[in-house]
């Protein structure tokens, strides 16, 4: 097995909070010793509500913040011993953007490349190719402030890739974009990985984004990793799918529930009005057996299979909904 791109062990960050008034000074643990492994070519989604420790972890991995404890290597460079080596090998696209509104897109790209020691001409050639790959042909001479939100975000990604890093960190990349631009951005992020084999580490508090984009997810809450795996694996941990059967009438529902539960070897069934809710490991493959078993004895007016969402995953892991948590 090749060495991982990110290998963090017990990465920790504590802050001292000054006491106010009679309150004593205290130490806050923003990140409580996380282990993170990211392999080459992966798109890893780092999911968690605001304040969970996502950004702090990201800032440590990108050398913007010194860890209070633990070790990490990024692209083989030790975070503590060789931060410049780490910086050379990574791209970082911060949530707030990368470009000055009054600056010209092409010039920002070239200047950024030159800070990595890349020759001006090479930078221009590479920058134009990158923009073209991100469907941004023709913005080379444009001021960054005149670009649309989606274009500007893709330019940010180009800024993060201009020195051809082996891995790129994207912090909340689609925040503030409309649904179409988001889908388009995801498409491009996937293509960056497919075309350049760039490893992508992406933080988000959107479940749909994490679900659509990532090969693997890390869920962080209160400074701890509370779950890791593919989105399918995580959803399976929640306890499976739900099969919803609609009975012909409210009166018929309890009978339907008993029958269905019996066919499925005592799978839990709840009745809610005329709807019977069954929890099963695999909804889709259970359905034919269930309907066959019910046969003509029971009238079924409707059938629905519901897969758990990442929000269900989050709810199970942390005891609160990601959406609620994000608003805190």
């Amino acid at each position, binding site marked *: 097995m090749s060495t991982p791109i990110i290998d963090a062990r017990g990465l920790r960050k504590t802050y001292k909070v000054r006491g106010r008034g009679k309150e004593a000074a205290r130490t806050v643990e923003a990140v409580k010793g996380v282990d993170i492994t990211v392999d080459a070519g992966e798109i890893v989604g780092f999911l968690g509500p605001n304040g969970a420790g996502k950004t702090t972890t990201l800032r440590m991995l990108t*050398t913007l913040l*010194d860890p209070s404890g633990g070790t990490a290597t990024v692209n083989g460079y030790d975070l503590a011993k060789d931060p410049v080596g780490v910086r050379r090998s990574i791209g970082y696209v911060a*949530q*707030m*953007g*990368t470009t000055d509104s009054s*600056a010209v897109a092409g010039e920002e790209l070239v*200047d950024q490349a030159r*800070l990595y020691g890349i020759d001006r001409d090479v930078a221009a050639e590479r920058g134009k190719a990158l923009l073209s790959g991100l469907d941004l042909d023709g913005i080379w001479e444009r001021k960054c402030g005149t670009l649309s939100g989606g274009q500007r975000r893709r330019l940010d990604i180009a800024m993060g890739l201009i020195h051809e890093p082996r891995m790129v960190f994207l912090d909340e990349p689609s925040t503030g974009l409309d649904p179409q631009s988001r889908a388009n951005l995801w498409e491009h992020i996937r293509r960056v990985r497919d075309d350049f084999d760039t490893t992508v580490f992406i933080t988000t508090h959107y479940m749909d984004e994490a679900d659509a984009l990532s090969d693997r997810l890390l869920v962080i809450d209160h400074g701890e990793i509370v779950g890791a795996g593919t989105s399918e694996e995580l959803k399976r941990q929640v306890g499976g799918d739900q099969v919803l059967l609609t009975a012909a009438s409210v009166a018929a529902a309890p009978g339907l529930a008993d029958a269905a539960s019996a066919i499925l070897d005592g799978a839990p069934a709840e009745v809610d009005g005329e709807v019977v809710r069954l929890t099963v490991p695999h909804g889709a493959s259970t359905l034919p057996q269930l309907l066959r078993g019910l046969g003509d004895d029971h009238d079924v007016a409707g059938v629905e299979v519901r897969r758990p969402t990442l929000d269900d995953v989050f709810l199970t892991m942390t005891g609160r909904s990601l959406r609620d948590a994000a608003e805190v």
Partner: protein
Amino acid sequence: MTIARDTWIVFSRAMRLSLRQPVWVVFGLLQPILYLALFGPLLETIADTRAFGEDVDAWQIFVPGLLVQLGLFGASFVGFGLISEWRAGVIERMRVTPASRTSLLLGRVMRDVVVLLVQGTILVLTALLFGLRAPWWALVAGIGTVALLGACFASLSYATALTLKSEDAFAPLLNGIALPLLLLSGILLPMTLAPQWLETLSDLNPLKHVVDGVRAMFRGELTDPVALWGVAITVGLVLIGLAVGTRVFKRQSA
């Protein structure tokens, strides 16, 4: 030297962005001329009261003051630009490149110094037209003082801006510091007119000694202790300014 190289890249980017603001360029150049035209005539009358001393030309008093003021005010406001750069993510983006963090500060300070050198030169040349008489080396030293003070205050301004990261906090703080510094420096009126307590207070203001130093030079007194003292304090201010600035730029939370 990678620091020199990185500083040059940051400088040329900053300079390019500044030059692209036509309004900024015009007002930047116009400002020193406005001072001379709209404030100078008042000084000519005041000088007649002999408050500045015997046989002193009003312009020899006034222009050194204006130069120091240019160095102070021209540079103190640069932090606002940095806050907006920070908000756009530019600072963070550059901090994750291998470029030295000192260069990120020095390149920007260099841009400000170049701007002040141009403004200072315009100020002096225009003052000559208005009737200023002073040795040529004193004029060069005067412009040099603007540049050095500019490096100091631009550095401090960036350091403060990067620490506060908010225009709302930065503006009152700036006014709270720059205004007393200006009033206590004897730039506008001679401190000899002041009551004793005010004069003592102004003696504590390094800028007062810088102004006095440049005035001594404009009178042709290069080796006068007042002039030498002024030079020493200016150099000291630059060292302090750059030290503070570099420290803040290297700090992680910035």
